């Protein structure tokens, strides 16, 4: 993979580690799912609910991958299987060659959910520290967190409490909280679904800035535009039981900015992704 244009932003918050990683195991994927099936148990009479079936997916070490698919197709389930929060009923999941449970124990995952769920009794800085503090309260990297807050445009709001922040600002704190302990993989479940459209575009740019191409991101979204703008690859899933229908590489150059959205290439790729999504929904369109 070519060198990341955003690497400088990333270096401020994560020194050098990626170069070592790149050298040691250049080709093996960060995440690998083979034949994954997830069945939720329901009432005894109804039998199981198949949320995911025969799902195969490989995600590279520096790759930004978006999952697109209709509601209820198992995107959240897929994210939780990767993050070791749910065990697959069948199939194998590997995270850097190990099991997801092992990866979870080693604090490899940074999760961001749709609702930032900040603690109202902690200010922004302290909220951003929460997960790092849970991992090891003595080695919380405050300088890193301060740098991240600055990178997402909240340097003046470290002392502010959640109720004093807008929805978009709260979600930025949520992103900083997930990156605070320098996780190996970022898992995001519709993180911008609850913020307004204008803020959403800005948050996408902020996310690319702090991501910097140094770790894989798996990003669930309903927005085709957002998926295309952010990703190296868009994975389109079918309706339940979910499986991977199509994988569309997005070879738009980086860094991507506001203007990227207006280019002809962007429009063309967006059209292709939209067609794939239509196919996933059984040609109903949307």
């Amino acid at each position, binding site marked *: 993979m070519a060198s990341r244009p955003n690497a400088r932003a990333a270096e401020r918050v994560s020194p050098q580690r990626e170069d070592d990683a790149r050298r040691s195991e250049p080709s093996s994927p960060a995440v690998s799912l083979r034949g994954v099936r997830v069945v939720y148990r329901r009432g005894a009479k109804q039998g199981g609910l198949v949320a995911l079936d025969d799902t195969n997916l490989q995600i590279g070490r520096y790759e930004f991958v978006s999952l697109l698919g209709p509601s209820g197709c198992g995107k959240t389930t897929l994210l*939780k299987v990767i*993050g*070791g*929060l749910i065990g697959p009923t069948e199939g194998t999941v590997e995270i850097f060659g190990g099991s997801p449970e092992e990866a*979870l*124990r080693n*604090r490899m*995952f940074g*999760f961001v*959910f*749709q*609702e930032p*769920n900040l*603690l*109202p*009794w902690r200010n922004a800085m302290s909220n951003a520290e*929460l*997960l790092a*503090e*849970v*991992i090891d309260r003595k080695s919380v990297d405050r300088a890193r967190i301060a740098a991240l807050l600055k990178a997402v*445009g909240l340097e003046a*709001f470290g002392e*502010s*409490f959640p*109720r*004093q*922040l*807008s*929805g*978009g*600002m709260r979600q930025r704190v949520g992103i900083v909280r997930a990156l605070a*302990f320098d996780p190996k993989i970022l898992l995001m479940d519709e993180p911008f679904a609850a913020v*307004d459209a204008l803020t959403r575009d800005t948050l996408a740019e902020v996310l690319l800035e702090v991501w910097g191409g140094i770790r894989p991101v798996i990003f669930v979204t309903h927005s085709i535009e957002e998926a295309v703008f952010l990703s190296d690859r868009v994975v389109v899933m079918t309706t339940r039981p979910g499986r991977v229908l199509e994988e569309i590489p997005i070879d738009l150059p980086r860094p991507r900015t506001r203007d990227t959205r207006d280019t002809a290439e962007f429009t063309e790729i967006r059209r292709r992704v939209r067609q794939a999504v239509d196919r996933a929904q059984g040609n109903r369109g949307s």
Partner: protein
Amino acid sequence: MGELRSGDTSGTASVRGESAAAFTPAHADAKMRWLRRVWNAFLPILAFAVLIALWQLWVVWAGVPAFLLPAPTVIVRALIDGWPDPLAYDTWVTLQETLGGFALGCVLGFLLAIGITYSRFLERVLYPPIVASQAVPKLAIAPLFVIWLGFGILPKIIITMTLVFFPIVVTTAQGLMSVDANLIELLRSVNARPWQVFWKVRLPHALPAIISGMKIGITLAVIGAVVGEWVGAGAGLGYRVLFAQSQLQTPVTYAAILILITLGVGLFALLDAAGRLAAPWSDAADRINVTM
């Protein structure tokens, strides 16, 4: 309203609220608001004073005998005459019973709530008898505690405890369990230990609910102490109410009741203030203005 609630602001610029003055004539408004606040504080006092005055007038004008309904001035007289002996001592006894029972009730309620929160089994086993225990009339079973535990302070404390623990269990369990599932999941994703989830999230999240439960509990505690004294005691405000009544010293009865009310209201206010200090974020959105 000229106040801008902080939760409503969505842009970066308006968070600091400098612009608030632009649409609020601040000085004229401040004076009005101050007057309104004084009026709001004054109104209940005024209403209370009117009520007392009417009481006094009616008793004097109609010549109601003191053993039926003493005039407020007579009650105050009885209060002064009975202080410190025996009313101060009674107050001290009742206060001990109230606080002792309240403390035990809080501990019991808190432990039960934790059990219920962390174990479905305990929830199913404990909830029915806990709820049933509240349907039992306390006055009816109070004599049993006296038989088991004697005439000292202990049965009063236990009776008080049985009243106090219930609101604590309900509010604490509700508070501990109402944490957003995604937040718990987020902590689980970094392999948080259960005790970390408890101390960092569940307990502070439940604090406003716990404080509400304690505020209900403290008023029940005063009632519990009085009930405990009624089935067998030699001192205390509840005992004094009954004893003075049997002697037709109705003014003393009223004086004791007055102290009981003051005790209940005072303890409640104390907890209310402590609660605001301990959990300033609860309902803070309504109290904190961006306008400075």
